[in-house]
């Protein structure tokens, strides 16, 4: 049922600016009733993707639909989809309340809805102030209020935590969770910092350099990559020979060590002992999510290619 209300389906989405493939053949699905983190470093193409989903930018190729329809074909989209795109979409001379009331008219909502959402985001006191005097955090809240105005089933939020103080971020987390859990809404929230959304999201869609790197449940992502074993040995080639038949891969790790993936630490120790391979260290590493994220997006240790080194091949080249 690709056209289930509230489901976002992105397929083959591509956006080319001149020679830059800002978004390159990206496909993913966002399920209703879940909070999906849309992650990637700055410049990965997150905002461009979201803008295409929202019909503000035209894809070079591919389509994006919400509830089975491209954005432009959704009847009264303000009641179906709410969006926050960088908190700068305000006329500085308009009050917060009037800003919201303008879109109340546009979406066919009663003016009283403006005060309700102002209350919801904690801006009631600033309702009659012009946006000119708003802090970045207040603008973020007003942007969120605008998104909530039509009580939409789908919320698409681009870096909503930007400019919020820690208290605001904590509030936002709870708020997003509430929207997905109790109201069964679809929430797609982008961030360049995993830790910002780690406690909030069920699923992640990870983008790097315009390409989809990974999508899935956050828990699967963590489980997949947590079984690394860090070893230090003077004879890595021998270790590879011994472990390769067991399906393990060995890749260069930090500080001249090696990371063994795919087998348990006991197996590594046992096989090394049997083959008389000298080991100086044997550690089970549970990589934290942030490290996984950095590895996936190719920004680990500030090294752009860290996640892409072909594992076993390089080992043989080491002295």
């Amino acid at each position: 049922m690709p056209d289930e209300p509230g489901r976002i389906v992105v397929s083959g989405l591509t956006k080319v600016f001149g020679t830059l493939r800002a978004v390159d053949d990206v496909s993913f699905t966002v399920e209703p009733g879940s909070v999906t983190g849309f992650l990637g470093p700055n410049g990965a193409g997150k905002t461009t993707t979201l803008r295409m989903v929202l019909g503000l930018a035209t894809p070079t190729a591919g389509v994006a639909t919400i509830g089975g329809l491209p954005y432009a074909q959704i009847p009264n989209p303000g009641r179906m989809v709410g969006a926050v795109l960088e908190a700068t979409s305000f006329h500085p001379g308009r009050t917060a309340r009037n800003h919201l009331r303008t879109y109340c008219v546009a979406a066919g909502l009663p003016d009283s809805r403006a005060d309700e959402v102002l209350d919801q985001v904690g801006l009631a006191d600033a309702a009659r102030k012009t946006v000119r005097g708003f802090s970045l955090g207040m603008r973020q809240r007003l942007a969120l209020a605008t998104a909530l105005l039509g009580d939409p089933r789908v919320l698409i939020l681009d870096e909503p935590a930007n400019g919020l103080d820690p208290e605001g971020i904590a509030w936002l987390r709870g708020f997003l969770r509430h929207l997905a859990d109790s109201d069964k809404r679809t929430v797609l929230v982008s961030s360049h910092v995993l830790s910002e959304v780690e406690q909030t999201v069920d699923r992640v869609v990870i983008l790097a350099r315009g390409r989809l790197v990974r999508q899935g449940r956050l828990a699967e992502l963590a489980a997949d990559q947590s079984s690394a074993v860090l070893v230090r040995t003077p004879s890595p080639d021998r270790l590879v020979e011994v472990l390769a038949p067991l399906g393990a891969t060995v890749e260069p790790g930090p500080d001249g060590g090696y990371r063994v993936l795919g087998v348990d630490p006991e197996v590594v120790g046992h096989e090394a002992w049997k083959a008389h391979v000298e080991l100086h260290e044997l550690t089970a590493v549970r990589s934290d999510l942030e490290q996984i994220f950095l590895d996936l997006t190719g920004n680990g240790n500030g090294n752009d290619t860290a996640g892409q080194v072909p594992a076993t091949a390089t080992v043989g080249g080491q002295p």
Partner: protein
Amino acid sequence: MNTLIRTELRKLFTTKLWWGMLAGSLAFTTLGVVATILGAGNDQSGIPPLSAPSTQRQAFGSSGAALIFILIVGVIGMTTEFRHFTSRPTFLFEPRRGRVVAAKLVTYASLGLVYSVLCAALAVAIILPWLSAKGVDVSLGANGIPRTLITTVISVAIFGVVGVGLGVLVRNQIIAVIGGLAYLFVLEPLIRVIPYVKDAYKFLPGGANAALTQANAQTGQGSTDLLGTWTGGVVLVCWGLLFAILGTALTVRRDIP
């Protein structure tokens, strides 16, 4: 469409621009009336005496100054969406971009109508008592004055359309405002006197407006060949719509900033 127009009206009346520009329109109308009456019959001004129908028409036509202001309001009303990125929520709530532009055209034409009716009323309110105090015989129903009042009101309303059209075509607020004014008040007067191109003047926005409002007849600069009154009006509307359609065609294809 109704909803979109009401949205535009809400946008318009929740910032201060509209009344600042209305105040400017009223001030320029007053200036025009005062200058015409004080200068009438004065050799240096070149304005015929107040009893002359052309002078009376010129005084009543002073409300045409509102076109500058409605042009600016129209341009800003459109470009402000791009400048402050309110284009995002605007096109999120109504993704059919052409309809948003159409709603703005209607809204700003209507606002132009309101501006010019108020300015015309102000002109009448100043001229009638002042001239009767001076003992000049003046009647709203004579000397071509009804036509002047009506065409001036229409001209200002059309400039609301031209302003929005220019704004959607140019998008950059500063360039659109300055470009629009520089074109009307510097470039077109030049085109009008340069051989070979001056024949095109009557088809240009300023020339079409001059035909509509018979501004040349009022100011005695009747040497240039102009279109007929209503033809001029239609040509002026076409300019506004041409800008709007071109701009919309481009906007629909371009990404919203």
